């Protein structure tokens, strides 16, 4: 709704009198207080405290609405919806990143900043977790529930505000319109308002322990959740905001990919990363509403109270509903990374992409199979006969995943690969994901699964896929596209050195976790048998190295953005459309009309894939 069909006839547009983010906080506080007090006022049972579970939920809704209106939603969405023009002009300079925007490049950077900041917070929590586990008994956290809450907040932020957001909301919003030759997106306000749900969701999850520690991890497991203190409510609500944000982006990018491709960008020529975003958007659109409704049912269990998932309901039903979403979520995180490998490798190798069609088919089949594997997370609750189909499909999904490896390795074969930082990080990511994928095949087999269930073997496996696969590729993509985003080039020495640091830190930490798991180290416990201490101690040291490496990358990329040497528009000699325009791109993306006449991945012909016709 409220698409951009109003223009202004009289020039009375102004800047806000208060910084939008500041106003957002103020209006959020007012919204919370007003709805909280309204709830208390109609509460038939007198004598409750000022904030109850119900008033906290309704107040939170008021707070989020106040926040969204405050950061620009009032002027940018609500007024135009009612036919009144937006009275604001877009802020100049860096201030445009601190208010509601309809410019897809600004929105992309806003998402990147939010997910990077969240990655930093979740990383700090991880450091706290690893510091705790350096000793076999509690010494950093005071209570076990504090440790479990730290694990839960870490996992929730990483999955819903980093893994789901960075590549899709961040790079997807920025790059997809450029890569298809579009001048904008179909629903710019939708993505614009969607971004501001991320800080709302992240802050909700971070501050949830103030209402009591919750011990369920990122999965909100029942019946634990129904027994936990009230903090679990803000887990549900925070995730609701974060998933709603990703839903907004998915609708916008899917419609943009289908309808805003420039002349010549046929389905057969669509860039790999765009295919990845399209498949992930479809996954988001199916599974995010599913988990939102599941969490609504969980909330009703708390508030009314109903008994859907608690001990007299069906916890197993919750597990099924959660993992129906939960396993596709893993592919929501990873599929854009698989697509990015085959986006970056042909450019670094300056060699035609091998088996392009198979790479695309692989992404699509991963998407389709991802909804058929969920119950492998629940083997401990199942009969043998029920395990078989889920074991089968879980192993089958490794085949289309392998298509991405096939295309990447086929392209690398006998190439003169340019081992710049993005290329190096992609190779590292492929190695990491291979380890994560192979151990996933082990976990798909019930005998192994039942043996290592809920041990650090599983923790190592999914960190190899999420951090080793997605986050390494995210860093690679940032180095690959930072010249496009900023017009500046990073320092190759520091880029490579830091890549090696995180590779050593990552593998030093997580490869040993496999062994820890096999030796009996359980998840979800801050204390463990003393014989596991030496290896845990080493894991923590490597984890600190990994954390330092990521901080180093963040500082290096920031330095590049601000002070890096100016670079040509197409420093890698890439053929996709984002390299056809200036760096950074102009507001309309291209100074002219784009016409695509050839493949983006053919490096055996000199003719460019596209031409830019200057405006008439």
């Amino acid at each position, binding site marked *: 709704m409220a698409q951009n069909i*109003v*223009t202004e006839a009289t020039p009375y547009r102004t800047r806000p009198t208060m910084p939008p983010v500041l106003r957002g906080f103020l209006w959020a506080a007012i919204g919370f207080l007003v709805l909280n007090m309204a709830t208390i006022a109609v509460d038939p049972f007198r004598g409750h405290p000022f904030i109850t579970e119900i008033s906290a939920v309704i107040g939170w809704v008021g707070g989020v609405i106040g926040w969204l209106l405050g950061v620009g939603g009032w002027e940018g969405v609500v007024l135009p919806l009612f036919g009144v023009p937006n009275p604001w002009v877009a802020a100049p300079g860096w201030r445009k990143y601190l208010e509601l925007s309809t410019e897809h490049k600004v929105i992309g950077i806003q998402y990147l900043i939010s997910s990077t900041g969240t990655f930093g917070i979740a990383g700090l929590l991880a450091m706290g977790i690893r510091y705790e586990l350096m000793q076999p008994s509690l010494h950093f956290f005071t209570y076990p529930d504090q440790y479990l809450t730290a694990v839960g907040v870490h996992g929730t932020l990483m999955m819903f505000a980093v893994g789901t957001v960075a590549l899709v909301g961040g790079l997807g919003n920025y790059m997809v319109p450029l890569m298809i030759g579009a001048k904008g997106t179909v629903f710019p306000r939708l993505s614009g308002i969607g971004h501001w749900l991320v800080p709302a969701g992240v802050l909700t999850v971070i501050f949830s322990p103030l209402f009591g520690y919750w011990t369920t991890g990122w999965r909100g497991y029942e019946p634990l959740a129904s027994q936990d203190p009230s903090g679990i409510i803000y887990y549900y609500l925070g995730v609701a905001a974060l998933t709603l944000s990703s839903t907004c982006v998915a609708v916008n990018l899917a419609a943009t990919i289908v*309808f805003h491709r420039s002349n010549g960008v046929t389905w057969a020529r669509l860039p790999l990363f765009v295919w990845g975003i399209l498949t992930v958007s479809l996954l988001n659109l199916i599974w995010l509403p599913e988990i939102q*409704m599941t969490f609504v049912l969980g909330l009703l269990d708390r508030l009314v109270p*109903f008994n859907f998932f608690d001990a007299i309901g069906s916890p197993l039903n919750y597990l099924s509903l959660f993992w129906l979403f939960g396993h596709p979520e893993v592919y929501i995180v990873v599929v854009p990374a698989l697509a990015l490998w085959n986006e970056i490798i042909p450019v670094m190798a300056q060699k035609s992409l091998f088996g392009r069609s198979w790479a695309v088919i692989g992404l699509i089949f991963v998407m389709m199979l991802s909804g058929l594997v969920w119950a492998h997370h629940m083997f401990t609750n199942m009969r043998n006969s029920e395990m078989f189909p889920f074991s089968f499909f879980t192993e089958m999904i490794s085949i289309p995943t392998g298509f991405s490896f096939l295309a990447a390795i086929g392209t690398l074969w006998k190439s003169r690969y340019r081992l710049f930082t993005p290329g190096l990080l992609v190779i590292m990511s492929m190695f990491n994901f291979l380890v994560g994928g192979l151990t996933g095949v082990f976990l798909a087999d019930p005998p192994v699964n039942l043996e290592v269930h809920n041990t650090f073997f599983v923790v190592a496996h999914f960190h190899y896929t999420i951090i080793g696969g997605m986050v390494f590729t995210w860093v690679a993509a940032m180095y690959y596209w930072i010249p496009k985003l900023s017009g500046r080039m990073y320092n190759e020495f520091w880029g490579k050195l830091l890549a090696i640091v995180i590779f050593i830190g990552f593998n030093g930490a997580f490869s040993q976790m496999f062994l820890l798991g096999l030796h009996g180290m359980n998840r979800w416990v801050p204390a463990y048998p003393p014989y596991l201490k030496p290896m845990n101690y080493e894991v923590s040291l490597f984890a600190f190295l990994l954390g330092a490496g990521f901080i180093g990358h963040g500082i290096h990329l920031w330095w590049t953005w601000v002070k890096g040497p100016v670079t040509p528009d197409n420093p890698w000699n890439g053929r996709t459309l984002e390299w056809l325009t200036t760096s950074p791109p102009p507001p309309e993306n291209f100074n002219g009309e784009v016409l695509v006449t050839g493949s983006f991945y053919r490096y055996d012909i000199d003719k460019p894939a596209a031409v830019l016709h200057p405006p008439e």
Partner: protein
Amino acid sequence: MGVEAVPINPRELRGYRFGLVLFLFTQAVPFVVLYAVEYYFDAFYISPATNQWLGAVEVLLMILAWTTGRSGLAAMRHNNLSGLISGFRQSLVLGLANLVVLGYQWGTRFVPPGTRYGEIFYTVSGVTGFYTLVGLFVVLAISIRAGRLRFTSENCWDAEAAMYFVTFSLLTNVVTYLFLYWI
């Protein structure tokens, strides 16, 4: 008001339609979850305490709301702006009447909430009511917007979009009625 409508080109319009329909399809997913949970807990049980007539009245009101909204949109296609606004306002009133009947059902507690069927009844009817409320908000907003921007027969996508929402609300009301009172 210092504003004017800018025509939308056909490609943009197709994009808007596709995006909104895609969004509404995704919003069917929560209902699939609810109906699945209903089947899991209640199978085909219908509480004898339910009042099927009131449920039918709710659906009837929603059908009337959809019909008046639709006639408003048809009027707009003939450049009758006041017909659109009037049709949408009538649709709004009928939709609110639907919610009032739902509120009456909730208030009188025909269905005891402390039962398996009761849990499902209040959850499914509540979610359906919430989506109806959102649809009515869109109808209200667009009826105001239409007057301010002076919609024309060539430029009334917003009204069409509002009707997409109302159609979705109608479908959820009908399916919910069937699941709660008949199946």
